[in-house]
């Protein structure tokens, strides 16, 4: 009969074994990985004679000068798709929700203003980021998610087609975009990321543009 502490007891009377009676320590630990017998067996693995190859490899690794770590400021950005690959600072994102119905406002037509969206019992403005940025019109089939951004205290809902996730970038990794461009996407761009594929958007310019579009209300 196998008793706790015997060689490979976890493969016989433990969770990886089928022998009965079962190990009585399982009552206490529930799983072999919580048991000191298993833990000590694991540590005993390190008690083997060291291999010369391993020793040599580690000697070489440890002799390498430390890598220079860029300690500059980092920015957490949310990368998403809405007409183009865009990025905005994470702290602006108040909520991400599934696409929900947009209530049209009668007698008011502006391509950037899509309507009103109910959020936590309140109605919020819903605007189209691609239209503001001078990209194509957004099709409703592209509304995968809705993001709620807080820009200068205003909560505004934007439909986006895809959320790629949160990335951390060194401030130095953000390349400034061409300042000579005055039109379209580039005029809203604070910088470019990832081989100039992602535009970091200036949220304040977006808000100014929205305010301009809604002036008649």
């Amino acid at each position, binding site marked *: 009969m196998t008793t706790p502490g015997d060689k490979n007891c976890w493969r016989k009377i433990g969770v990886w074994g089928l022998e009965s009676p079962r190990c009585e320590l399982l009552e206490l630990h529930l799983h072999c990985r919580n048991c000191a017998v298993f833990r000590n067996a694991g*540590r005993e693995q390190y008690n083997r004679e060291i291999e010369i190859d391993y020793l040599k490899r580690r000697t070489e690794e440890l002799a390498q000068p430390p890598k220079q770590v860029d300690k500059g400021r980092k920015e957490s950005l949310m990368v998403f798709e809405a007409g183009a690959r865009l990025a905005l600072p994470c702290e602006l994102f108040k909520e991400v929700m599934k696409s929900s119905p947009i209530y049209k406002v009668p007698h008011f037509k502006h391509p950037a203003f899509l309507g009103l969206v109910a959020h936590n019992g309140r109605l919020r403005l819903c605007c189209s980021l691609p239209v503001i940025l001078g990209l194509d019109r957004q099709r409703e089939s592209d509304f995968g998610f809705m993001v709620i951004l807080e820009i200068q205290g205003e909560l505004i809902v934007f439909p986006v087609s895809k959320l790629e996730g949160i990335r951390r970038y060194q401030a130095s990794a953000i390349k400034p975009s061409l300042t000579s461009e005055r039109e379209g996407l580039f005029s809203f761009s604070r910088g470019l990321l990832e081989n100039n594929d992602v535009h970091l958007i200036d949220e304040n310019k977006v808000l100014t543009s929205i305010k301009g579009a809604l002036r008649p209300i």
Partner: protein
Amino acid sequence: MLYLVLEIDGECYGLNALSVTEVTPLVELEQIHEGPEFLAGLLNYRGRPVPVLDLRRMIKKKPCEKRYCTRIVIVEYPRTTKTLTLGLMAQKVVRSVRVTQEFSPMELRNAPYLGGAVVERGRILHCLTLEKILSPQQALEVFG
């Protein structure tokens, strides 16, 4: 306080984790001929030579065995006005413990580096006092 546990022939020694910079695996050391016995050699630590003490040799008069669990603990050794980088080689450096109780004080003439002991999980854990690990004479030999 968090202590890194080193084992030397079944005895547990705790090193305050605050003084530990890194725990590296056992590597090949540059031998120093005619050097003191307790000095295991010089380590090429990221492009800098760092003296490594063999703790088993210091305490048990036997050199550390070449095993996977034999590791070099890189510490900042306080010396008069500045701290110097020092390596401590010991066996079974595989765990750390959080000690809440006070170490019972101890002052041994022949082992000044023992700063007291506690009982941890049924075993005695000796506290290593880093600044007393080398006698003034030994420190002079190692660091000049």
